[in-house]
Every structure is written in structure tokens, then in C-alpha cells.
């Protein structure tokens, strides 16, 4: 695991027209006598991670062109949020990136607080950062499991890794259940702070869970790190830094393409300004680099969580009273943008307040990192085989709840 974690000074890449396979290839100009097969991969397919659909044009098994279609999971979340009061929006957002709900909640509530000028107490900021890091571990574990399953099939070695990853992820969910009473849709953040305080036995539980995860991580990585895995991932689905920036990729995908960018360090929120976040960067740009970056992030999150859980200060947990009154939180003017580093990248929330309806946002826009990851599909798929396409899609890790909203 020799991922360099020290900051590499990268020159600012000016996005120009990068050399990429043409996703808008006119198929009529493709070898006229080639027998192309159109394969509609998804929306009902075991490896599209939800209801993602890619129309593939195959020449034999080589992909010539890939056209992604999303929207099968569109629920109109943004519009819905414009009708809800600020205090009622949080539980809706849990369902967006359903692999890391805690960060969805945090992103929206940070935007609300910024809009209303509410200062969050230090204890709440610590707790938010801690659960964000724990959620990152859980999310990356889920990714690792499903990625292994993409490579290894539902009945084979991949499933073994999948089961192990879910077993470890379960420990984090147990922690969240202890803290909030819920295993998944927590609704623990609210405007001004957090709803649930740390139970007395919780820090010890966190340490125990982290120790278990760290110990077992090495054990089941030995199942993954063998020549077959490296053959399947190395040099597959390469995204160079320029293309990554042009596509607006963020998070592990951007860092795996060699761009040293992490909101936790570069635009700190919560208590990240008090922490020394080591950002994992890998210049490979392929599936293997993405795997290594995410693995390094799991380890880094374990380290940060240990630091955080030992240092949570005493004090109030919220600047406001969580009464859930519709009229409690009001904003009449202004617009804000808040970016949060989720396990998938920069989750942005853009808000506009209006005088007409002060209790709910006038416009609520979510910038999901997964949407940009899914947008990379037409650029990286062509030239690869169908098997590689599944590996690439797995490594891009788009969460459809977030892409379609």
C-alpha cells in the first residue's frame, strides 16, 4: 500500500480540449461493414449499481460507443425540498446518496446554517466530523465489496470479499444505531447542531469497531491483492487529470487521476481545520488507482476517527432547539453554496432564500458527485471490453439515488 500521502505540488491544469475517445461518434462513419451489436446494459442489470442504463455499441466484445441514460430513479427531491420547511428537509436527503446518508444531512444543514448565520457549537462540529469519517469508512467498505463482486461474480471469490466488507460495515451501522436509534436513515443533523448526544459507552465502542475493521482489512485484502485482480484493474478505464477536471470529477476519482484536491483540507469545514488530513493521491487514473486511493482513505478515516472520538469537547450540542416547528427556521434573503467532501466527492448544496416563503428554500440545488462520475462513462468505455466496462463502472461508483435525485 505505497500510496503517497504527502501533498504533491501539481501544476494547475488548464482544461483545454483533452484527447478522449469521441463519445458522440457518428456510427455511420464507423467501418461500414462492421456488425455492431446494440446492448442495453441496464436498467435491470446486476452490476449497474441501481437503475443506470448504458446503451453499448459492441464490435465483437469491444465497446465502440457508450451512451448513458439516467433518470430512472428521479424522485424530484429538489422540488420537494422547496415545499418543505428547513427542519423537515433533512430526512428526505438521507435517501439521496443512500450509501452515505450522514453526509447528505450534513451538507444541507451546513448550507442552512450558513444561510441563517447560525454558529454551530464545537461539540456538534466534532461529532459531525466524526460521524462523517465513520460514514466514509462504511461507504468505502460497501464500495470495495460491490467492486469485488463486479470483478468476481455473485457466486465466487468476489462474494466472499463482499460478505466480509458488509460484516465490517455492519459494525459502523451498529455504532450509528447506538447513537441515533436508526441504522440508515438517521435524521440526526438539524439546523444548528445535532439531535442525538454521544451515549457514555459509545467512544469505547467506536475504538473497538475501528480496531476490528483495521485488523480485518488486511486479512481480506489478501484475498483481493493477487495477479487476477491486478490484471483486471491495472490500465483499465484510465482517466487523465485533464479529462477528470473537464468532467468535473471530484473526490477519490479526481485524486486517482493525480489531482491533489480534497475539500477536507483545501476548504475545511467542521473541525477539519484542526486536523491534519493526509490526502491520498495516485497518478494512475485507472481502476487500480481508484481502488488504492479509496483504500488509503479508509485507513486515513480510521486514523481521523480515533483522533476525533478521543477529543470531543464538552458543551452544548446545538445552537438551536430542535423543535421541528415549521416556522422555527427562517431566511428571507441571500444565496449560499456549501461543498462537502463525501466518499464520492464534492457534494454541493446551493440555496436561494426568498421573502415570499421564508420557511423553505426558494431554490434548492444539489450538485451530486456521482452525476459527474456517471458522465465519464462515454469517455472511458470505448475501446474496452464488456467485462472491463463492468469493472470501470464499479470503480466509478455512481450512486443512482444521487445521480437522479
Amino acid at each position, binding site marked *: 500500500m505505497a500510496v503517497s500521502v504527502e501533498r504533491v505540488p501539481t501544476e494547475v491544469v488548464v482544461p483545454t480540449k483533452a484527447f478522449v475517445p469521441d463519445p458522440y461518434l457518428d456510427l455511420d462513419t464507423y467501418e461500414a461493414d462492421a456488425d455492431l*451489436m446494440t*446492448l442495453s446494459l441496464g436498467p435491470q*442489470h*446486476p*452490476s449497474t449499481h441501481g437503475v443506470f442504463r448504458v446503451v453499448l455499441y459492441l464490435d465483437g*466484445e469491444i465497446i465502440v460507443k457508450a451512451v448513458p441514460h439516467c433518470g430512472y430513479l428521479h424522485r424530484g427531491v429538489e422540488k420537494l425540498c422547496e415545499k418543505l420547511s428547513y427542519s423537515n428537509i433533512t430526512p428526505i436527503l438521507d435517501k439521496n446518496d443512500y450509501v452515505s446518508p450522514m453526509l447528505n444531512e450534513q451538507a444541507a444543514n451546513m448550507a442552512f446554517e450558513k444561510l441563517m448565520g447560525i454558529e454551530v457549537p464545537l461539540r456538534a462540529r466534532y461529532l459531525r466530523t466524526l460521524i462523517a469519517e465513520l460514514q466514509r469508512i462504511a461507504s468505502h467498505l460497501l464500495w470495495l465489496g460491490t467492486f*469485488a*463482486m*463486479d*470483478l*468476481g*461474480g*455473485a*457466486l*465466487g*471469490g*468476489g*462474494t*466472499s470479499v463482499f*460478505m*466480509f466488507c458488509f*460484516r465490517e460495515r455492519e459494525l459502523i451501522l451498529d455504532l450509528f444505531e447506538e447513537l441515533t436509534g436508526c441504522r440508515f436513515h438517521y435524521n440526526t443533523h438539524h439546523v444548528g447542531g445535532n439531535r442525538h448526544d454521544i451515549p457514555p459507552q459509545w467512544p469505547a465502542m467506536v475504538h473497538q469497531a475501528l480496531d476490528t475493521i483495521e485488523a480485518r482489512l488486511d486479512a481480506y485484502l489478501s*484475498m*483481493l491483492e*493477487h495477479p*487476477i*485482480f491486478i*490484471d*483486471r484493474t491495472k490500465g483499465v478505464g484510465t482517466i487523465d487529470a485533464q479529462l477528470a477536471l473537464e468532467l468535473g470529477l471530484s473526490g477519490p476519482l479526481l485524486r486517482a487521476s493525480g489531482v491533489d484536491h480534497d475539500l477536507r483540507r483545501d476548504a475545511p469545514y467542521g473541525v477539519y481545520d484542526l486536523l491534519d488530513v493526509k490526502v491520498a493521491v495516485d497518478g494512475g487514473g485507472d481502476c487500480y488507482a481508484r481502488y488504492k486511493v479509496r483504500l488509503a482513505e479508509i485507513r486515513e478515516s480510521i486514523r481521523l476517527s480515533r483522533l476525533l472520538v478521543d477529543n470531543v469537547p464538552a458543551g452544548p450540542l446545538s445552537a438551536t432547539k430542535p423543535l421541528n416547528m415549521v416556522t422555527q427556521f427562517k431566511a428571507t434573503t441571500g444565496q449560499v453554496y456549501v461543498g462537502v467532501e463525501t466518499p464520492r466527492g464534492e457534494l454541493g448544496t446551493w440555496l436561494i432564500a426568498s421573502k415570499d416563503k421564508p420557511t423553505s428554500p426558494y431554490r434548492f440545488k444539489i450538485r451530486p458527485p456521482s452525476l459527474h462520475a456517471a458522465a465519464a462513462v462515454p469517455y472511458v468505455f470505448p475501446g474496452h*471490453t*464488456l*467485462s*472491463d*466496462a*463492468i469493472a470501470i463502472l464499479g470503480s466509478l461508483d455512481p450512486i443512482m439515488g444521487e445521480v437522479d435525485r
Partner: protein
Amino acid sequence: MITNPWLNGLVFGAVLVTVLMTLVALITWFERKFAGRIQSRMGPTIVGPFGLFQPLADAVKAMQKESIIPRNADKFLFRLAPPLTIAFALGTAAVIPFAPGLLGSDLDIGVLYALAFSGLLAFPTWVAGWASNNKYALLGGMRMVAQGISYEIPMVLAALVPVVLAGSLSMGEIVKAQVQGGWFIATPVGLVACLLFLTTALAEGNRIPFDIPEAESELVAGPTTEYNAIGWSIFAASEYAHSVVTSGIAATLFLGGWDGWWRLPPVLWMALKTTVVFLLITWVRWSLLRLRSDQLMALCWKYLVPGALLLVLVAGIQVSVRG
């Protein structure tokens, strides 16, 4: 003994198929339990003691389901593929000696027959993939043909090593040679040949890391995508039957067949060895990932075929030096 060879064959065949299918049912339970333990879960526990009757419950469930044939499928071929698969998988077992004299037919060319029949398995899989009129199934069928044909060559070459060492193509003679001269797996050439044979058997039997035709995460279920109910069950059962039979062939060719050194009956020795080989295959299956099809081909033609040729050469030299 029945003197009429036709009647003899019929009776023995009926008994063999019954016993083998029971064994297959048992071995699916065994694999599921084994996989469960690998993945830190229980495996089947509900039906019967230790979940032993789970295969039975599954079969009954599959039989009760409605068999759906896609509208545009080639209905004749679609129905033909499952019985063909199980026929080829079980037919291979006819030449495996389970005990001295206890085998369907001691053909002079038993090894050739076994490999030819096991190689035929690619054919019904391709038929299923073609007849389904489904793109995933078609891709899976094509992959199966490519893989089946390619891996046939190193498999035959690996099986040639015990043939050269024993000086006979008859399965019975090969076992007898091992009873007299020691199991072939104990010799360096035999050990390498055994490993090579098992590797190619994984590819022939469509098992991880070579289960590229099925490839659930890519092709949904490969050639069997459109199959359901009993048709699908037959495919699943024939995959297991093929694995069991291949394990039996490997046990016969390299592990000394029914030969044993303790007072167990030869049939039990044979069963034990087959189980050990199957366990190995299962272990590999639940701990490795899948290769890509071009990597699979490269592995076959660049490494396995030349290696197997070299192995046959070494075995030939060994035999001629010993006289």
C-alpha cells in the same frame, strides 16, 4: 452378472445416473455449506438435519414453477439444450472405474472418450445461448465456445501424461498401473500434470476464475439467462455433475482411482478422492476473482499449451529412459 451387454449397459447406466444425481444433490449442499463457512455465514440450515435436504427442496420448488420460453426463442433448441447438457455431463462418467471391475464400460480409449464427452459440453451451452434469442445469452454462448475449444487442448495434453506413464488409454489400465507403480501425483511430472488438468477442468466446467461464459456481473447469467424453472435447474445440476465427474476423472488419472492402503472398500476411496478434488475446485471458486476473456485466451495459448506440450515431452523421456 448380466451377460447381455445391452441390458448390462442399461442397468448400470440407470444405477450410475441415480447414484450420480444423488451425489450431485449432496455435493451442492456441501458446496453451499463450504462457501458459507468461507464467508462467515451458516449456509443452509433449515430443511432437514444441517440443511441436508435443501437440494431436494430447491428441486421441488423449481419443478413447481412455470416454464417460460421467450416468444422469439427457437423453441425446439431451447428445450433441447438442458437435457443435452446433463447427458454429456453424466455420460462422461461411463468410463470412470469406481472399483475394480465396477465401471460402465472399460473402453480401450476410455480417456479419449471421457475428454471428448466433457468437451462436448460447450455445444449445448452454445445451443442454449443461441436459442434464447437474448444478447447476453448469445455473448455467453460465444464465450463458452471459444473457451471450450481452447481449453480442450491443454486438457487433453495434461491427460496424455498419465496415458504415457501407464502406456494405455484405458481408464482401468491407468488405475492398475498406479496400483503397481504408485500414484502419478507422487511424481513431479504427474503433480504438474494434475494441477494443469484441474486448471483446464475449471475452464471446461465453467467455474471461477474461468466462469467467463456465465459471468453473472456482466452477462446476467450468460447462456442460461432466459432459462427458469426446471430448465435452469437442469443446467445448474449439470454444472455440478460435470464438476463431480471431472473430479472423478482427475482422481482416476492422477490420484490412483480406487486404490487405497487401508481396509476401506475401493468405492469409498474413490468417493473420498473425488470429494477432495471437488473441495479443491470449490475452494478456488470461492476465493478467486474472474479473468477477462482475452486474458483467459492468452493464458491458454501462451502458457498452458506450450507448458502442457513440454510436460508430455518430459513424461515421454521419463518413460523411455526407464524402458
